[in-house]
């Protein structure tokens, strides 16, 4: 089964999209817009001349409009690779969050002669947290589906929630997206709630495992545009600045470990040292702090001041504990 094939390529997908939309005619500008919106940066340069000149003979020009030479759907059939991948999902416990038992049976039957791409136990995630969400809990599955539906329909929800420090709250939230962490094996709801004191919407993250009940709110209004803007805002806190030495393969380890963060790295030739600035969500501060400490002396925090003082405080506390035990 071939993973690298032009049939999955950006150009084939884009041309299929153009042909589908060009059944009723598209102007040159409309086609150019599709190419700019869905192609690579240089796609227009390569694709448009072949399309418009008739070299590929896929469009005909009439009255300044381009028409597809085909009628009906232009999407291709699923390939064996895609079916194998789908079949493999059926043995993943998380599939129950999406499909009920009869849907799983039906899909399984439709993929009867297809081989699995892999088996779940071919993979061993050795540092996955052991307190992941329970994907076999019917209540959890029902709440997950209700939340996913509300995210797609942009419907506010009344959510009953057990906080991390105890205590149960019930409040209206505007759901945005569901975030999954492979390390935590947990789903979290990215949402927003109105802060009356500051008179503004604020970003809130709720663990799905701690959500006790979900109800559609009676006050239905769509704020998806505001939510989008809210979640695209950059974090206003200062980035953490690290100095990474060349010892113990620290550079590669550090770059890989923090690859999921937005960051910038520079090499200082004179000092033979690397400096990395990591932008982070303030709610992840402690996690980032302990991950940096895990590198020991090969990574040094330079700032910001508040972050640096937390690092120093922990090391200082460590020295005191060690000496008290001696």
């Amino acid at each position, binding site marked *: 089964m071939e993973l690298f094939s*032009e049939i999955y390529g950006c150009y084939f997908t884009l041309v299929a999209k153009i042909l589908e939309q060009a059944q009723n005619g598209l102007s040159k500008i409309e086609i150019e817009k599709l190419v700019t919106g869905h192609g690579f940066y240089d796609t227009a340069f390569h694709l448009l001349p072949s399309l418009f000149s008739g070299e590929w003979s896929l469009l005909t020009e009439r009255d300044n409009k381009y028409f597809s030479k085909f009628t009906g759907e232009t999407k291709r059939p699923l390939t064996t690779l895609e079916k194998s991948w789908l079949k493999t999902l059926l043995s993943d416990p998380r599939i129950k969050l999406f499909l009920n038992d009869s849907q799983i049976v039906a899909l399984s039957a439709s993929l009867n002669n297809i081989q699995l791409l892999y088996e779940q136990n071919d993979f061993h995630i050795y540092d996955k947290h052991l307190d992941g969400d329970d994907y076999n809990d019917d209540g959890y599955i029902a709440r997950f589906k209700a939340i996913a539906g509300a995210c797609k329909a942009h419907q506010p929800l009344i959510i009953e929630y057990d906080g991390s420090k105890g205590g149960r709250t019930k409040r209206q939230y505007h759901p945005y997206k569901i975030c999954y962490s492979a390390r935590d094996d947990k789903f979290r709801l990215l949402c927003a709630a109105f802060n009356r004191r500051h008179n503004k919407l604020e970003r809130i993250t709720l663990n799905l495992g701690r959500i006790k009940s979900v109800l559609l709110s009676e006050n239905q209004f769509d704020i998806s545009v505001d939510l989008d803007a809210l979640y695209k805002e950059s974090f206003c806190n200062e980035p953490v600045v690290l100095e990474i030495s060349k010892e113990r393969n620290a550079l590669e380890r550090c770059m*890989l470990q923090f690859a999921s963060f937005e960051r910038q790295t520079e090499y200082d030739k004179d000092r033979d040292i690397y400096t990395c600035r990591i932008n982070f969500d303030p709610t992840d501060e402690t996690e980032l702090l302990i991950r940096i400490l895990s590198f020991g002396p090969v990574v040094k925090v330079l700032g910001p001041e508040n972050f640096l003082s937390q690092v120093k405080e922990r090391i200082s506390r460590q020295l005191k504990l060690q000496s008290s035990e001696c």
Partner: protein
Amino acid sequence: MRDFYVYGFKSRIDFDRKSARTYDNEKRRCESYLKKYMKWDYKDGNKASFISVDSSKIPINPLFAAWKSKSFTSNDIMLHFYILDALKNRKMTVDLLTDYICEKSGVAFDTQTIRGKCNEYVDHGMLTCEKQGKAFFYGITPETVDITPELLDAIKFFQGAAPIGEVGSFILDNENVENNLFAFKHHYIAHTLEDGILLDLLTVIRKNQSVVFENQSERSGNTTTIHALPLKIFVSATTGRRYVCMYSLRKRRFFNYRLDYIKSVVPNEVIDSAPELREKLGNNLDKVWGVSFGGEHRTEIVCMKLHIDEKREQYIIHRILREGQGGELTCLGTNTFLYTKEMFDSSDMSPWIKTFTGRILALEGTNELVIKRFYNDMNQMAEMYSIGGEQ
């Protein structure tokens, strides 16, 4: 692409392994695929290009672009649409198909070219080829899978969460659907760049086949040829690394090799004892903290005495239970706990131990080097941050 994404500081002069032209080509390719995420910075007169992306904010892995960029000929793209159009709701011989396509497109194709493309699509599973009498009839493979909205949501999720997720992204592209529902945290998007090797390895794992492969260490630059039996893929959700666990047929023991260091895999003979070796590996997994199977001594023990405020810091106890890989946690007295774990190689555990900096009362273990290094590291850090005088 990996260099630009993972390191993010490569300027032309840092790109030491290949020629300047390769650097330019690679940079141009990255800029074309990842225009939104590519950034630039000038340092000492050199322009450094890098990819900077918060993986929790992107609906689809931008590095999937690497799988969606295979070059093709004019014939490839024309025949793709003409063949699928011609065979909609009917079956045709290659001669009929050729006539139909030539007439509709106004382009002269020879039968051989069309047969070749049809057979390629039979291999992909998109077309069927049936013999009726003396003639072969091509048709579109009947679609048995009903891509429901629920299944589409599952694909939106698994394209980011399951191995070889780019395949899910291919399906979404074909369905003209975008992931508008899920975000992913602790998501290592560079994994997709190793998925070709991963797929080859998963295929041989299914067949109990050994492989010969070239392992190129980025660290030392050395390339070695290894013959071994792949058994399992080890993944770290924290450090962003993936490994293949293999049984060395020569050394008769398990090893892990970084997926991103493997350049190609050649399948070799079927190993009859593969199921037993897989079982043996499974029985030993609880003693492998990370990826090392240790040295001469069979197992090592680490004991970490911690100060945890029982009333206010229950979250630390929870953290040890969820991250401690089955190690034993016992309460020794008020606010004092002992965590104990037996494993093949305790040096794998060192980074995790250091995440408890500020809470460790004492660290003991059978591997003296690991213990000594911990205390040295603490002293070095104290010196680095100019902390001291209270030891």
